[in-house]
């Protein structure tokens, strides 16, 4: 798990999203899937992915993310409940505007990467055959596979296979990308590239629903989050809801000899401070973090370091479920 | 389509299945139900009409089914289309005739055919399995007389058609049977009267015989022979489809194909036309009993030789046995052996003989639902539509 540093400005994540008023890109109501074995994979979830959002759909393996995505895409028939994709209850009518990567890439092993893309494009009744070759090249270039387009798929590495899956999702301009575990099998560099790609697409206005069982990998790019466990959606909302859910702590490092003064200033601000060497540690509570350095400087404290530690997803998950995130059921 | 529920979608194959079943089952029902009312006729009138009816030019398909109760004989698969199949099971024939003296009958195997073509004074048999032709011509000395008579040559061609079977049955009608009319029915798509012939004798194996006669042409369309107990006919031969029209000339003529093995057989013309079917018995043959209880006894038959496929042994058979039901098949078998075909040997008739007969004091007995055959150890063969015990009594 990477360091749970928050890099997204909460204001932009929770504020008005472009196109949000046009409704949700994905919405479900009491969506439930009970398999014939009796296992309830998805238990009455109300998913809501606003348009323009990068929605991180998180949860351990086996928590029901993939089944939910399959129901949203029309691959699996819900036992009960309804879902809307781009406002339509009938996924087939809008799927050409949706790019999807579901549970790993799937291509014909004996066809080249390019031939696989062209086959998918041939299957798209709304795609223009005249531009197929150009669009395939562009998609391959975008995921860095152009050099390997002529190789049979079976010779691809795991990372290349994953990239080809992304390329398939990018064959046409999409309003919504549904990426199920897009970083599976990718090395750190590949993971970074995927994050960058998602950010680029989001900036261009594409809604992205991205699922992962590895929190740190996509947490950084999400504007919205939904957390699943055991078929239930535990938490959902803009990135900032996490801050309210968990405990944000403030860490202040001061010059030697200023510890007592600093602790006094923080107490005046209403914080419950614990000190360790030159570091002071307190729960932030409702306090505006920007006030802390100002008050310390005003009191003549030499501030060496100041850090706001927002709650990690993992911590929130543990708080919500009482169990570790990587527990598969 | 896309918003049908799964239940509705699964109803589709059920509906399709029902429609398919209806499509396959309904037409025969409709056909049998649509038989229009025929004018009333007395049994005697019908018998007379059949006897007097001119032979019609026709073509059609004849299915022969024998359920004689013999042990299952895996002959059909091994032998291709050959008359041996007529002994038991089901066989299909195509027949064409101009109603005078040209005809063709083809016994169909799955991928083979045994054809008998008669064109006036000459006839051919052709077996596709062996690619073998036998050409029968009337003796040169009899040819002039034939031309004068334009009469049946006594050659091959005696496949068990409904007409042949019907004439055999109706020959026994007058003296030994009671004749009634059953409800009209549809046979081969044609409205038909059903003549029921019941033997007066109670000792014959034959229960009753139903002859279905085409109402328009008085042509027998189907003959069914019941034994005394079964619910289904023991032997059934009938048209499954029939067209009354003169077949094309190409069907009624024949020339041996290139590369086929060919054999010429010259046959004499009988003294008088009637002689062919007269009661005159060949030497070595004795007939006991009357009507349905007739037992034919052949003496001096080299059974062992016949079973070994020895063609010469055929000469020991005194003549054909006019027993109802087995007559045609037996004649064919005989003729088939005379072709010099290798198939008889392939089939190992000896083993077959052992399988379908059971030992009795003084010989071996074959019992079927309609016919019993006793082969005595001293070389006599007794055949009749009577129980085996009757034959054994006759043999003593």
């Amino acid at each position, binding site marked *: 798990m990477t360091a749970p540093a928050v890099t997204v400005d909460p204001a932009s994540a929770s504020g008005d999203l472009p196109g949000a008023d046009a409704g949700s890109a994905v919405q479900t109501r009491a969506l439930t899937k009970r398999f014939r074995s009796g296992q309830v994979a998805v238990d009455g979830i109300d998913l809501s992915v606003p348009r323009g959002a990068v929605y991180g759909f998180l949860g351990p393996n086996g928590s029901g993310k993939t089944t939910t995505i399959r129901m949203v895409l029309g691959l699996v028939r819900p036992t009960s409940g309804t879902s809307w994709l781009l406002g339509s209850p009938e996924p087939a009518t809008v799927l050409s505007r949706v790019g999807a990567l579901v549970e790993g890439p799937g291509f014909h092993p004996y066809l080249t990467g390019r031939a696989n893309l062209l086959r998918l494009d041939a299957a798209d009744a709304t795609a223009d*055959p005249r531009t197929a070759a150009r669009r395939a090249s562009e998609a391959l270039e975008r995921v860095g596979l152009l050099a390997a387009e002529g190789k049979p798929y079976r010779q691809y590495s795991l990372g290349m296979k994953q990239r080809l899956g992304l390329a398939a999702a990018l064959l046409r301009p999409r309003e919504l990308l549904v990426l199920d575990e897009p970083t599976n099998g990718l090395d750190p560099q590949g993971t970074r590239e995927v994050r960058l*790609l998602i950010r680029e697409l989001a900036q261009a206005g594409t809604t992205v629903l991205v699922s992962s069982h590895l929190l740190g990998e996509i947490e950084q790019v999400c504007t919205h989050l939904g957390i699943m466990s055991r078929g239930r959606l535990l938490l959902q909302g803009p990135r900032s809801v996490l801050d309210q859910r968990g405990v944000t702590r403030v860490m202040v490092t001061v010059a030697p000899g200023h510890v007592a003064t600093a602790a006094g200033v923080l107490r005046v601000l209403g914080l419950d401070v614990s000190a360790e060497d030159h570091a002071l540690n307190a729960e932030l509570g409702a306090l505006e973090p920007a006030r802390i350095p100002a008050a310390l400087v005003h009191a003549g404290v030499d501030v060496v370091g100041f850090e706001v530690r927002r709650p990690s997803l993992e911590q929130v998950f543990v708080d919500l479920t009482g169990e570790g995130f990587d527990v598969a059921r | 389509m896309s918003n049908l529920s799964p239940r509705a979608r699964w109803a589709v194959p059920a509906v399709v299945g029902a429609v398919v079943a209806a499509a396959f089952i309904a037409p025969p029902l409709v056909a049998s139900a649509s038989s229009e009312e025929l004018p009333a006729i007395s049994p005697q009138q019908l018998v007379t009409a059949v006897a007097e009816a001119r032979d019609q030019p026709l073509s059609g398909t004849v299915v022969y089914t024998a359920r004689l109760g013999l042990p299952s004989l895996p002959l059909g698969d091994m032998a291709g289309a050959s008359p041996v199949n007529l002994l038991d099971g089901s066989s299909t024939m195509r027949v064409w005739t101009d109603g005078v003296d040209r005809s063709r009958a083809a016994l169909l195997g799955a991928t083979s055919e045994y054809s008998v073509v008669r064109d006036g004074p000459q006839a051919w048999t052709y077996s596709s399995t062996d690619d073998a032709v036998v050409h029968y011509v009337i003796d040169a000395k009899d040819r002039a007389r034939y031309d004068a008579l334009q009469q049946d040559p006594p050659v091959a061609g005696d496949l068990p058609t409904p007409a042949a079977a019907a004439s055999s049955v109706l020959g026994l009608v007058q003296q030994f049977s009671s004749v009634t009319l059953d409800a009209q029915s549809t046979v081969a798509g044609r409205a038909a009267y059903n003549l029921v012939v019941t033997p007066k004798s109670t000792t014959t194996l034959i229960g009753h015989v139903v002859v279905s006669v085409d109402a328009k042409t008085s042509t027998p369309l189907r003959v069914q022979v019941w034994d005394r107990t079964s619910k289904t006919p023991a032997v059934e031969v009938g048209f499954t489809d029939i067209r009354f029209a003169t077949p094309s000339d190409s069907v009624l003529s024949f*020339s041996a194909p290139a590369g086929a093995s060919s054999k010429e057989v010259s046959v004499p013309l009988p003294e008088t036309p009637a002689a062919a079917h007269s009661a005159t018995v060949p030497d070595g043959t004795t007939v006991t009993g009357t009507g349905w209880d007739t037992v034919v006894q052949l003496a001096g038959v080299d059974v062992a030789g016949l079973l070994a496929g020895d063609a010469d042994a055929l000469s020991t058979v005194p003549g054909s046995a006019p027993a109802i039901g087995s007559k045609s098949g037996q004649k064919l078998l005989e003729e088939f052996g005379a072709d010099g075909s290798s198939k008889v040997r392939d089939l190992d008739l000896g083993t077959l003989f052992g399988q379908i007969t059971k030992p009795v004091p003084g010989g071996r007995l074959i019992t079927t639902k309609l016919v019993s055959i006793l082969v005595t150890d001293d070389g006599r063969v007794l055949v009749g539509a009577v129980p085996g015990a009757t034959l054994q009594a006759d043999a003593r």
Partner: protein
Amino acid sequence: MSLAETPTPATAPAPVPSMAAAYWRLQRSELRLVLGRRRNLVLLLGLAAVPLLLGLVLFFTQDTALDGQGPAFLGRVTGNGLFLVVASVFLCLPFLLPLTIGIASGDAIAGEASAGTLRYLLTVPVGRTRLLLVKAVGALAFAAAAVSAIAVVGLVAGAALFGVHDVTLLSGDTVPLGAGALRVLAVVAYVGLSLTGLVAVGLFFSTLTEVPVGAMAATVVVAIVSGVLDTIPALSSIHPALLTHHWLDFAEFLRLEPDWAVIGGGLAVQAAWVAIFGALAWSRFTTADVTS
């Protein structure tokens, strides 16, 4: 990675292709997939080898004691190369052709499922009914290719080794070469159409599983079991409805006057199997959860 395009679907300029054009685009892609796949090509080559080997064997044994021995039609090959087509089709019909059909049709849906490509096709989206139709046509095309491979190689090998002559029918009558060749063509066409029922059965099995080998094996087993049932006299009442019962009726075209009722009956039984198993495959495929 560069951002070359901006998703602006509302103003997408590309004209939407017509339904038919879109269907045929996918159908062409499917045909390329089926007929271009190396495994399938090897199968076709294997089938094409049958008439070649058969022809060579007959050619080198034609003056020996073995001449004229063996199953139906075999004895006629040395006299007329056209019969090599019929004999080869006849020999391949009990097992090799059902095996080929089983592989092609059993793989149709299950193969995509096992490769993981099914879910991507369906999210493209391809309507399930359309995909099933495309797959069925693909499997049928492969069946046609299989029969054609035997026929074409049989014709070429037969003509080269034995020459072609007027055709002697099963009745012993001889028809001119042109008419005879037409009859042989009809035999091949009938055999091809006789396999459509098995294609439908295989397609249905293919929708039941994600394991292509399972669907292939089950399809072949159906053909074999049907053949076995057809030989059991006690079941004669169901024989006419059996999938394989009418397969040998192709011989009708080699009779003096082919009975169209027999030929039509055989094809009607195939049509019935296609209708029932096609409907079953449709119901199953359009209601199944795709979890592969």
